[in-house]
């Protein structure tokens, strides 16, 4: 039986059906009633990965792989001894990492750090925000140059256009191509005025140049002389060649590419049917050839060309060297893709140039090899690779027929060699020079310190020297700074000690950029006076009485200390309004009055008047009894006495008056009432003195008292907005904008 089951197993494996196998294993396991915890596996991609689903996957069931086990296998080999030693050393040196912090703790730390960072980031806005808060007139949107999106404006225009049915149909079939305007970096950061002007100038120059070129081209196109064109072509070729030669020197790879291009153009020429006598032009020429010498010549030229081309195709596969020769002789047909070769006939110059090019490189390589072989011994070990390359290249005779690709390699290696040479030379120089130069530089420095306006610039080839120089100057500066700081400290010590420590801490925490308020106007921050319609001042008298009563209860001085009163000076609101009545006048008046009323008994009369006056202002009792309320009412029925007493609000018998203790003086307290209700009782917020506030009120703003320009400035509103313009939130670009 057992053997049978094993066979079955094998069958399963041969079928390689993992699922079935798993099922079977499950079933077998379920026979045994102990619970097995299986390795969890993920089926669905989720963002949240539970920590319970993570498994040590590398080692499988046996546990993780240890490095020591791996190095054991290396122990026998001598060459790898170092590796195993290194591993051991690392093992000894390394410690087990400390247990990570508890998750909430770690999170808290992370949060605090992040918050501090954002706080600092937000601090960058402080200046902008305070400037906006303080400014007396802001116009929104803040960035004045409202950029109308070009695309949007187009859409805007198209909104009003009625599309024809055909257009609509077409649109359905061919959706309009959306244009994406790639904004350059420079557009994002607005330019300064200077930069803008410079750019404009440059653009103008470019345009002028372009125009000039265009005009010239047009003129030249109109010229019909063949000779002229021929000369022109020749010149062009010469120019191109020169360029090519320069390219050889500066960028040989690029030059090679050009060469390849030339070859390509030749190949294309070859498989095209040009220069055959089958074209329309050729046939015409044939007809004409009987009589015309020139056409005969033309035809002959064409035929030779075609012959050349075909010949080359025959010899093509023979050898690579010959192919190179092909390149030399390749006819430069008209090729639109290659302006370089446009209309260039295979002249001597091209051939010369190409052969020259090859020769040049061969020579170059040879010389480079020689020189390098000489110097390789001196050069550092690192250049081993290059050397090996050179050794390979030492036998150029054997593989003279190197393909173009190999050429490239050569060029690269030779380039490297040059670099090595240069570095060696430099190193030698450096060794000799520095001591001398140091002295020189010191002198120069001295000079510099004397004449700050004109700097002598000298070549500095040695890094150390520069560093030295900087260090010296830095030290000097540091010393100076220290001295200054010490002096300052001495001066400031008493002051700083006096400062409370809390303030210092505050300064550290927050950036304070508060500015004085530019335009002072009273700022009122108080609740609205909110009423309902029904509440009209119905019982004003009652409220008046109540206020009087309440004020009376408050102001009840129990002990009057005369000395105190005498000492106190009258609180004078320091107004700027001049006092018109002067003492002299008063004295004069008094004399006149006493003369006039010499005989009358004025005193008694005056007292009478005074008492009358005070009686007039006395608040009266208010009778609140409602006749008929709770008792009979009507004519002839008297209101109950007790009721009367109960419902009358009693006025205080004596109300303090200003003229109470002032002998011969009656003060009419109600006289000012009409003005009083217009007068400000206390100094409003941003003002600190009455004088300031009065001055602010006294300064007119109207154009009846001020010139028009001043008036316009004074009435400028604090916030202006453009009608129908969306005000977008402040953007971060504002922080980057230098010129605003």
């Amino acid at each position, binding site marked *: 039986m057992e053997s049978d089951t094993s066979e079955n197993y094998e069958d399963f494996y041969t079928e390689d059906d993992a699922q079935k196998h798993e099922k079977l294993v499950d079933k077998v396991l379920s026979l045994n009633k102990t619970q097995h915890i299986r390795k969890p596996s993920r089926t669905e991609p989720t963002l949240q990965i539970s920590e319970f689903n993570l498994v040590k996957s590398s080692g499988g069931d046996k546990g993780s792989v240890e490095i020591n086990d791996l190095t054991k296998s290396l122990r026998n080999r001598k060459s790898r001894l170092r590796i195993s030693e290194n591993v051991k050393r690392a093992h000894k040196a390394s410690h087990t990492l400390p247990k990570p912090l508890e998750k909430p703790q770690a999170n808290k730390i992370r949060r605090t750090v992040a918050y501090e960072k954002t706080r600092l980031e937000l601090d960058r806005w402080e200046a902008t925000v305070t400037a906006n808060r303080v400014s007396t007139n802001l116009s929104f949107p803040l960035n004045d140059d409202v950029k109308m999106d070009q695309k949007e404006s187009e859409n805007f225009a198209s909104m009003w256009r009625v599309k024809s049915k055909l257009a609509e149909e077409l649109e359905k079939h061919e959706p309009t191509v959306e244009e994406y305007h790639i904004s350059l970096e420079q557009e994002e950061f607005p330019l300064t005025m200077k930069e803008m002007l410079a750019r404009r100038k440059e653009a103008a120059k470019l345009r002028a140049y372009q125009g000039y070129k265009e005009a010239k081209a047009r003129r030249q196109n109109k010229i019909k002389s063949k000779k002229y064109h021929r000369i022109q072509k020749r010149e062009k070729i010469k120019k191109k060649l020169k360029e090519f030669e320069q390219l050889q020197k500066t960028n040989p790879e690029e030059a090679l590419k050009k060469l390849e291009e030339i070859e390509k153009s030749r190949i294309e020429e070859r498989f095209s049917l040009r220069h055959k006598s089958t074209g329309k032009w050729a046939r015409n020429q044939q007809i004409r050839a009987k009589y015309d010498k020139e056409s005969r010549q033309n035809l002959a030229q064409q035929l030779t060309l075609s012959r050349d081309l075909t010949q080359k195709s025959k010899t093509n596969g023979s050898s690579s060297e010959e192919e190179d020769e092909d390149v030399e002789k390749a006819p430069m047909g008209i090729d639109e893709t290659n302006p370089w070769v446009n209309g260039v006939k295979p002249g001597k110059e091209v051939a010369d140039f190409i052969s020259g090019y090859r020769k040049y490189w061969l020579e170059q390589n040879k010389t480079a090899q020689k020189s390098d072989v000489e110097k390789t011994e001196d050069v550092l070990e690192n250049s081993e690779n290059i050397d090996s390359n050179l050794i390979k290249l030492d036998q150029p005779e054997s593989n003279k027929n190197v393909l173009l690709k190999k050429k490239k390699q050569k060029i690269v290696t030779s380039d490297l060699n040059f670099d090595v040479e240069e570095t060696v030379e430099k190193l030698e120089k450096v060794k000799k020079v520095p001591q001398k130069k140091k002295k020189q530089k010191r002198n120069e420095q001295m000079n510099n310190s004397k004449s700050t306006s004109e700097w002598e610039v000298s070549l500095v080839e040695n890094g150390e020297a520069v560093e030295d120089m900087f260090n010296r100057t830095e030290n000097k500066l540091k010393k100076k700074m220290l001295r200054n700081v010490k002096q300052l400290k001495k001066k400031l010590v008493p002051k700083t000690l006096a400062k409370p420590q809390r303030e210092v801490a505050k300064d550290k925490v927050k950036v304070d950029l508060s500015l004085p308020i530019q335009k002072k106007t009273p700022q009122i921050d108080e609740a609205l006076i*909110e009423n309902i319609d029904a509440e009209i001042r119905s019982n004003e008298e009652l409220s008046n009485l109540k206020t009087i009563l309440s004020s009376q209860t408050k102001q009840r001085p129990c002990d009057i200390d005369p000395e105190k009163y005498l000492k106190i000076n009258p609180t004078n609101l320091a107004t700027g309004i001049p006092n018109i009545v002067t003492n002299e006048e008063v004295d004069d008046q008094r004399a006149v009055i006493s003369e006039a009323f010499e005989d009358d008994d004025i005193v008694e009369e005056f007292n009478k008047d005074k008492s009358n006056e005070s009686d007039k202002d006395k608040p009266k009792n208010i009778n609140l009894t409602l006749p008929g309320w709770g008792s009979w009412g009507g004519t002839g029925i008297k209101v109950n006495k007790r009721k009367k007493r109960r419902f009358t609000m009693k006025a205080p018998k004596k109300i303090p008056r200003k003229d109470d203790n002032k002998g011969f003086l009656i003060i009419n307290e109600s006289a000012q009432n009409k003005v009083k209700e217009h007068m400000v009782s206390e100094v409003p917020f941003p003002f600190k003195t009455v004088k300031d506030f009065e001055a602010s*009120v006294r300064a007119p703003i109207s154009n009846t008292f001020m010139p028009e320009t001043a008036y316009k400035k004074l009435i400028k509103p604090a916030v202006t907005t453009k009608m129908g313009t969306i005000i977008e939130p402040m953007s971060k670009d504002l922080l980057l904008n230098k010129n605003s």
Partner: protein
Amino acid sequence: MKVKVISRNPDDYLRETKHDIHKVPRNYDPGLHPFEAAREYTRALNAVKLEKVFAKPFVGNLDGHRDGVSCISNHPKRLSVLISGAYDGEVRVWDLPQKLCLRSFVAHEGVVRGVIYNPAGNHFLTLGDDKTIKTWKTAAPQFGEEEEPVNTVISKTVLTGISHHVKDPVFATCGEICQVWEETRNEPVRTFEWGVDSLHDIAFNPVEPNLLASCASDRSIILYDTRDSGPLRKVVLKLRTNKICWNPMEAFIFTAANEDYNLYTFDTRNLKKPANVHMDHIGAVTYVDYAPTGREFVSGSYDKTIRIFETSKGHSREVYHTKRMQRITCVQWSLDNKYILNGSDEMNIRIWKARASEKLGPLKPREKAALNYSEALKEKYAAHPKIRRIARHRHVPKHVYNAQKELRTIRDKGKRKDANRRAHSKPGEVPHQPEREKHVLKEDQ
């Protein structure tokens, strides 16, 4: 004999055309104008009275919803478009100048919790109680086409609020957790959790768009950084915050509408105490929105009033109410700083002027100058009692008035009690606590 005659150049006193202003030669010597201040005061008084005469802030209302309006949102590029969601799952798109409903469709089963446009304004997102986020095209469907969302995302958690990034195609939702989504993906890009309390509002900072603020049901306001670090800090207030709004012109300032009738303006860099406490409402403040200038904000409340506050001041400068307007659910300040829109429980969306007595439409230069002048006068004489009384007088409904009176007595009582305790205990034992320090319970790191 020579006769001397007074002769004048007519150019000095005649105007060129009859449309010109009469030339009036003036001597600005202050000595010649002894009543400057008095005359200006009278003008100011007149100006403030006229202001009251012209104060008619109600512009119109948009009716059509068949249930209370739960949320509204402005179009980011067009001033004339408004979108609103209701408690019955209906979403409506409005044309404001014509007061017309352009589109209406049922977007969700249950309440629409949030509506928001994407920054380009070509799509809008709605969020409902059915745990879905739907993306809709702004362009109305063609004739015969059905209203269908461009995209529907089914969330695993309950969603209660949404806020869109200012520029990027990224938005954030809140609910059980705070999630950041990308418009093109159906799974949240990031999720942030701090504590287990559900969040009911979320707001992207428009200036520093990596900052997020949300308010949780444990009475806290939580700040997040969307870049990598996640939650930054938590402030716990005495009562729950209903809505948060960032100042669009001041990167570190945000205002929280609180359940305790107050609004708190916080400086993100110093969360220990609010920078300002704005009190005047007499019911829970349900919504707050900043003016695009960042100078003012508008708040809607459960007390059926809208109030406009200046950012730097503790009391409102304006209160709007109408007889039929019920509990305010949402308020928006239009992006040209001219109008205020609010949705309320009784199915209407109302349009108000942001400045009650402002003249709408284009003004002629002289008219503008005159208005500016009267504004300047009012500002100059603001402290004078008569002007102050007229300028600050408002008529409020009875329930507001009574509630205010009651609140005042309660506050007075508290103050009195404090004063008494202070008076009868050792000096320094019961220190005076400023209003700003009363409301923040703690700042969690």
